[in-house]
């Protein structure tokens, strides 16, 4: 029986063990809708449908979008979750398709699940002459042909566009001929590697559209980020109209930031985020409120899920987990269960953060800051999509980022300072994409690719005998199908498959991307799936298979890695009075050496094991800080080492406040006396080969990062340094504060500036 959420909130307000740890409790008042009339010129059939569906008026942002698209502009819509963004682009696109029988549209969603979800919405329109087809990896071949022949609106994803549609464009003549609209949903997800690839895929799309004499316009929707217009511009090459003022109504919502209490004030150790989130979650679920818990990792998802199932035995069957690595049909079942309200509690990674319709949940709990303001609002938005009261709780972890936010809620509630970054010039991405483009249409010698000059890439590919130049034209002359070998979402091709062995039977239970293998699937690692534990018994690196067996040990495992960095070339360099900053190409060598065994429940360390996997080498970009000797005066070697480690931890942890990225995409390393620079040095590097712009942005905002870091350490209530500031167990909090103060005082005197264009 559903119980009033208000009552539970009151209970929490009066529960001193809860309220004393709340650093922020804000209520967003309900907002009324701002409507306008459906524009006169909207096609009769569409008006008929809207009226039939009970839509007699449109929200103001939907009307704005309609006007902008109808006048031929490119548009990015950045209104909040559940504000009717899809209707905002559906109305002008469907209107355009109705009015021009030759016009076609392509919709791109970042995941198949989103496509499935949206197709149901658009199909409901049932407009005459507008055949809608979903075209992705699951589409049977009989339907594929019909889609190419009769489709007016194709719903697909960037992967399918990249490997299926563009390389076969002659089969898609009917779609490209008259292609008028490209819709990019969830634009903010196209950042980093994925975004860098997508920007080239859009260039390929435009190039092919132009071949068929079409010039489509782009319409995108995005979560709130600092630079939606810039991201749109970098991906599509067009300057958009930004539509950000929402006219949709919002139910009242409570935002609570909960900072778990210190259990060891001296060392700054707080109660763990996993346990606190589980406790809070079970309270809401027991109260009858449909609740989603977002965990920061696959591991945490499984741990919280197993706790909930264990301690809420009556509802255990109605509590589910959701994350990458589950098979597609498992996921579909869970989505359906959520929509029908059968599932009352769900523990998910950010996989459920995007706009899949999972019905209306009342409570969302974030077990740790999700890493970006955009994600925070997306995850918070998963509760309370319909009108009515909803609650979002952020449970802060020990990390400096979380602790900064616990003390600066305004960072979340005000305008987002995060920029979504891409780097189309990444040479790995660029070469791969030029190959794909050359397969599709020959390049002329002087051609650029978007704004990217590629003459060197073309002659490189000629030399490698992939292209052949005849006259001024570069022709594809290779038997391969390049798109198949270019993975647009991650650095490497090919996931590892996880196979369960039980006696003689074998069963695939999941997949893991190659980059995660050394930290998840080393031999003897404990792997969790659907809250069942497995132990990795064999890892076949060449065949990309990990064999696991069920186990019931009382611990999980956590890998430790060692990193070594060589500077190849500096592209920017600035000398200040007390430090030097560099932006450089570097070679990073990493090896996973050991793993820790951590006991469930108490989280104590109960042993170590060796990892025997090959060293990996990566060429990438790094932001580098080297400090003048005088800052370290009077310190022993150990003290210096500790200080550097404290600094690199702190800077890395604070970085995501200004760079929209997962903290795991930034690597860090320290060197007491860097060979070339000759000074104590800290590296913050981009974990993707060639870099996706993270290091560049860090170099640019380094002053803000240094200042925020100083602020974090000063504000931290611990006595001698803790995991929330400079790291645990090091008596160097004071030293770090003094160090940063000295450093920043020297900041203003810029001594020397060198750079690529200086």
């Amino acid at each position, binding site marked *: 029986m559903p119980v009033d959420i208000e009552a539970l909130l009151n209970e929490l307000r009066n529960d001193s063990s809860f309220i004393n740890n709340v650093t922020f409790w804000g209520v967003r008042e309900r907002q009324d809708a701002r409507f306008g009339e459906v524009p006169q010129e909207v096609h009769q059939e569409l008006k008929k449908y809207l009226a039939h569906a009970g839509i007699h008026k449109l929200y103001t942002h939907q009307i704005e979008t309609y006007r902008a698209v109808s006048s031929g502009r490119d548009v990015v819509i950045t209104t909040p979750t559940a504000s009717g963004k899809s209707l905002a682009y559906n109305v002008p696109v469907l209107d355009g398709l109705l009015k021009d029988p030759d016009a076609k549209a392509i919709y791109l969603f970042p995941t198949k699940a989103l496509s499935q979800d949206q197709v149901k919405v658009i199909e409901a329109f049932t407009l005459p002459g507008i055949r809608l087809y979903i075209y992705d990896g699951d589409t049977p071949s009989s339907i594929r042909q019909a889609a190419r022949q009769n489709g007016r609106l194709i719903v697909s994803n960037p992967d399918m566009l990249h490997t299926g549609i563009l390389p076969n464009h002659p089969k898609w*003549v009917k779609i490209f001929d008259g292609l008028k609209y490209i819709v990019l949903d969830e634009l903010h997800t196209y950042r980093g590697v994925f975004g860098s690839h997508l920007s080239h895929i859009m260039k390929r799309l435009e190039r092919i559209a132009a071949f068929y004499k079409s010039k489509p316009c782009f319409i995108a929707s995005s979560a709130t980020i600092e630079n939606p217009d810039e991201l749109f511009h970098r991906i599509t090459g067009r300057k958009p109209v930004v539509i950000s003022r929402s006219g949709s109504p919002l139910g009242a919502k409570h935002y609570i930031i909960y900072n778990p209490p210190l259990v060891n004030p001296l060392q700054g150790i707080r109660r763990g985020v996993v346990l606190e989130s589980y406790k809070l979650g079970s309270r809401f679920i027991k109260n009858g409120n449909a609740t989603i818990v977002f965990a920061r990792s696959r591991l945490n998802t499984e741990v919280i899920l197993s706790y909930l199932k264990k301690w809420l035995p009556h509802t255990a069957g109605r509590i589910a987990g959701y994350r990458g690595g589950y098979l597609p049909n498992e996921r579909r079942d869970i989505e359906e269960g959520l929509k029908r309200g059968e599932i009352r509690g769900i523990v998910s990674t950010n996989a459920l953060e995007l706009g899949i319709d999972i019905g209306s949940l009342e409570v969302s709990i974030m077990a740790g800051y999700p890493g970006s303001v955009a994600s925070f609002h997306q995850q918070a938005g998963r509760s309370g999509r319909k009108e009515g009261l909803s609650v979002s709780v952020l449970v802060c972890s020990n990390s400096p980022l979380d602790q900064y936010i616990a003390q600066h809620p305004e960072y979340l509630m005000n305008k987002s300072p995060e920029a979504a970054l891409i780097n189309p010039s990444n*040479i790995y991405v660029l070469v791969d994409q030029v190959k794909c483009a050359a*397969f599709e249409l020959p390049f002329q010698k002087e051609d650029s690719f978007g704004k990217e000059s590629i003459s060197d*890439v073309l002659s490189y590919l000629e030399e490698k*005998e*992939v292209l052949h130049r005849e006259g001024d034209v570069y022709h594809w002359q290779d*038997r*391969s199908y390049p798109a198949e070998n270019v993975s647009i979402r991650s650095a490497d091709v090919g996931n590892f498959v996880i196979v369960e062995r039980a006696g003689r039977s074998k069963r695939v239970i999941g997949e893991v991307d190659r980059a995660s293998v050394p930290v998840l699937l080393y031999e003897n690692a404990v792997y969790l799936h659907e809250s069942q534990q497995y132990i990795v018994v064999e890892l076949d690196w060449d065949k990309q298979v990990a064999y696991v067996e069920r186990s019931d040990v009382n611990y999980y495992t956590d890998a430790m890695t060692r990193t070594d960095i060589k500077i190849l070339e500096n592209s920017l360099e600035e000398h200040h009075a007390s430090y030097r900053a560099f932006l450089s190409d570097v070679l990073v060598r990493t090896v996973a050496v050991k793993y820790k065994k951590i006991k469930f429940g108490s989280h104590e360390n109960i042993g170590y094991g060796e990892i025997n996997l090959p060293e990996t080498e990566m060429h990438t970009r790094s932001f580098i800080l080297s400090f003048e000797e005088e800052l370290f005066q009077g310190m022993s070697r150990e003290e210096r080492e500790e200080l550097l480690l404290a600094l690199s931890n702190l800077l890395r942890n604070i970085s995501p406040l200004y760079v929209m990225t997962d903290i795991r995409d930034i690597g860090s390393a320290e060197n007491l006396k860097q060979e070339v620079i000759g000074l104590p040095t800290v590296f913050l590097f981009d974990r993707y080969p060639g870099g996706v712009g993270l290091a560049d942005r860090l170099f640019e905002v380094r002053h803000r990062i240094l200042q925020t870091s100083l602020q974090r350490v000063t504000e931290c209530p611990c006595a001698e340094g803790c995991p929330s500031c400079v790291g645990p167990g090091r008596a160097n909090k004071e030293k770090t504060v003094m160090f940063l103060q000295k450093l920043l005082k020297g900041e203003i005197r810029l001594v020397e500036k060198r750079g690529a264009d200086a």
Partner: protein
Amino acid sequence: MNRLEFFDRARSRLPMKKEQRDERDRNLECLQKELHGEVLSEGPSSILAVRYTVSRSVRHGDASFSEVGSLDTAVLRLLFSGTRKPEVSLRKLLFFDVETTGLSGGAGTNVFLVGFLRVSERGIEISQYFLSNLSSERLFLRYIQEELRQAAVLVSYNGKGYDYNLIKSRYILNGFPLEDQDPLHLDLLFTSRRIWKGVLPDFTLSTVERTVLGFGRPMDIPGWRIPEVYFNYIRGRDVAQDLHLVFEHNRLDLLSLLALLIRQVSVIRVGIREGRTPQRINPASISDMLLKKGYPEEAKSVLEGHLECTEVLKRLGLIYKRQQQHHRALELFTALADRASGVSDYLFACTEAAKLCEHVFRDMKRALSYAEGMRERLMRACAFYPELRERLEYERSSVERRIERLMRRLSVSAGKGIAQEG
């Protein structure tokens, strides 16, 4: 630093550049000389065309082309898919086959050699067009389009799915206007599947050649090497020998197409005339094809030659039933019931036999014995296949109804019999 150096180190596993001399002209000259080719040029574009006539007396495996002139057109018409029976004759057929730079399809796959074969009063005429440089594709395609346009019917092996689509892609990429309708196209892969379904292990052209035509190619260049040969040619290496082999490969493909068509026509013809054929065929799928075209007698004759096969008994029984030759139909269904190993064949046969006995011959006793046989078989099957239980139960309920009805009718007629006696 050159931005590509690292890319090279991290990613590239491509081979080192080989020596580069422009041997293209020399290669072309060789081809021209050996195959008596002709350079067709227009402005800066030029391609190589090779045309020659093959004698009808040449042998192709255990096939020969000597009887090509007497090809049975009536049977030829049966090979076309669906219900159409186009007016065709041997002279109107254009056989074609392409060689490409990859198997993936897609816009980056080039067609570089297209071979055509037609039969005329002069003999078997073959023409091959070769894309001798990448800038001349338009000219190359113009010649191909010209050939294709003249043809009333195209004949290929897997050309519907592959060759023809690729040519169309090349048209589109070179800005050629497309015809509204594709020409009539006979794909011998499809007809082979129909005739030899279940007889041949697979339907690659080489399997069909080996098993059906008794034709092997000991000297042939393997298909996977062909793209490499062309790339090497384009990059100016000495590949005259290999190129010659590619032309030869294409020529043999074309001759196989012709031989295969002749064989298919003759197999069906013999099947219709004599029921049995020297080589194994799939009588069921051939008869389906004949029936679809409206030739029940011909279908019957193929089937009558293969009474050892349950699929044949099934089809033949139904044809006789439709033609109201009930005794023969009942014979066949009875034979099928005796021989059926699967439950569904058995049920089919008994149901048909029971219906005939009940409604046509009014032999309720015999009908009942078929129905009871079914019941027993179903009960056994239920025990064996618990996973099919639901379906089997459904079948059984209809059998029970049949038994009930037959019992009723039996007792009524028994009653009548008593009354009459009395």
